[in-house]
């Protein structure tokens, strides 16, 4: 397979997946047992309210027409208007998305800055005390859900030590705890992936050759081994971005961080269906796009993949 056809095949797959995701999100509102409009209006809605809301949600039209209209809206980035505020959903999402990006970016930075060096240290001294300790800590950190780690961090750093605010997003310090909450479990996973990838590469003949040529050990590990191990590490980061986006929803709820997750949960409480649909669609699409980008980077980095062989 040539580079170009590999590229088109990958992009086509992503497009199909996003189309499927949009369809599933569209059907969310139809999957709710009972009448979504009745549920949203509660007991006090009049029949005029009922008819009006059905029309606003487009539920009075045939299912196929609704579906086509929804997909058409997605293409034009028109996700309807919020039932609660009447504002366009796309605008609401855009405002909150920036905050989520800030949080996710900070967490990713923490994860990369701590996870990769720790993984390298563990791989170089494999089986040593440091390796065994860090792998035990990593397992524990990965089992720690965000809504457990978050309150524990608040208890230590905000309540006892008073170094940072408990919640909100008013000053710069308030980013620290949510970013740590979200970043630490990813750091643990990244450390383990880095270790596993490096341990494998360090046994390759070309590493022995590099050592035999008398290169400094740091140069062997950082330039020769790490460069080769970067593909699996990159995969781990890509897969973890999903956990990061999903975890952001919960973390934002812990810290009252005004991002997409908070918007989504509020919309669920208010039965604001268009906002729920838009939020879920946006998060899932970002995840698909990021993973597509990473696959495309592979194609650029490793020509074997375009020929249909996976890099080991």
């Amino acid at each position, binding site marked *: 397979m040539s580079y170009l056809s590999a590229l088109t095949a990958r992009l086509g797959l992503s497009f199909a997946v996003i189309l499927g995701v949009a369809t599933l999100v569209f059907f969310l509102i139809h999957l709710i047992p009972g009448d979504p409009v009745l549920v949203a209006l509660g007991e006090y809605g009049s029949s005029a309210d009922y008819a009006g809301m059905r029309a606003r949600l487009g539920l009075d039209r045939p299912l196929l027409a609704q579906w086509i209209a929804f997909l058409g809206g997605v293409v034009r980035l028109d996700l309807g208007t919020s039932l609660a505020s009447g504002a366009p959903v796309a605008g609401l999402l855009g405002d909150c998305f920036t905050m989520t990006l800030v949080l996710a970016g900070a967490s990713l930075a923490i994860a990369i800055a701590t996870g990769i060096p720790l993984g390298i240290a563990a791989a170089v001294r494999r089986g040593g005390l440091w390796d065994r300790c860090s792998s035990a800590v990593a397992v524990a950190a990965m089992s720690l859900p965000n809504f*457990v780690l978050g309150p524990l961090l608040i208890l230590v750093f905000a309540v006892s030590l008073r170094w940072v605010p*408990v919640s909100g997003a008013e000053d710069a310090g308030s980013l620290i705890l949510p970013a740590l909450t979200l970043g630490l479990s990813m750091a643990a996973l990244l450390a383990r992936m880095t270790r596993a990838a490096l341990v494998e590469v360090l046994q390759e003949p070309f590493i022995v050759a590099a050592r035999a040529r008398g290169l400094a050990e740091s140069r062997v590990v950082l330039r020769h081994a790490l460069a080769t191990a970067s593909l699996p590490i990159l995969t781990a980061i890509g897969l973890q971005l999903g956990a990061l986006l*999903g975890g952001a929803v*919960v973390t934002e709820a812990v810290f009252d961080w005004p991002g997409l997750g908070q918007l989504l949960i509020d919309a669920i*409480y208010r*039965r604001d269906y268009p906002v729920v649909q838009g939020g*879920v669609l946006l998060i*899932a699409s970002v*995840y698909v796009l990021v993973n597509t980008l990473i696959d495309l980077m592979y194609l650029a980095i490793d020509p074997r993949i375009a020929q249909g062989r996976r890099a080991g």
Partner: protein
Amino acid sequence: MNKAAGAVCLLWLGLGLAAPLFDSAAVMIDLGRILEAPRVANWCGQDDLGRSVAARLFVGARLSLGIACGVVLTSAVLGTLIGAVAGWFGGIPDLLIGRVVEVFLAFPGILLAIALAGLMGPGAGNVTLALVAVGWVGFARLARAQVLALRQREHLMVARALGTPLPRQLARHVLPLMAGPLLVEATFALAAVIVAEAGLSFLGLGVQPPAPSWGAMIRDGMRYLLIAPHLVLVPCIALMSLVLAVNALADGLRERLAPSLRHG
């Protein structure tokens, strides 16, 4: 390590099974003992309505384990069936199922469960449904890969040549060989579902009060973090111990039953 993990799992299972003994204590309001701190005779203290945190923890263990077992069993059966169909028949069914799996995998973490549970409304049944909607995918992928590999084995070719009916082929010659990896996957899934259920409850989308879910206990305790941290600490420690133990158990099972899954 494995024995300790097994002991912790058994402990929580026992406490969960013994939950009926604590049902009345878990809802008994004692306004004289509001937010009472833990002490030697009462390790877990009392909550914001003076209810026993320990009793609520045990009743919560039943809820958490009950939902998690229900979700894992349902997703395992459903996912294995779907994945086995894809792997066995290949062709168009495989292609269709593969695309559907891709779409479900596009929702990071418990996002889909949050949306489903949120829109369907709270309650144990809806939470179970929402988590099954996310959970079947892992089993489907595993079953597909396993069936695909097993189909080529000699003993199955012999069975086919002898004219063994398909259901018998699957039940006698495929399923027993898949059981190990499936059990490992199910144990890991159990830990993940316990976390996910607590997460939904934490967001207020799970089982509703007065039923004491661990996630809801953490959420409610957050309001008293400054004056009564035990309300958050106790359920957090309970959840961590259970999840760590189940994960360690799954790790041990994997070493024994399916070492090939280590990088999967």
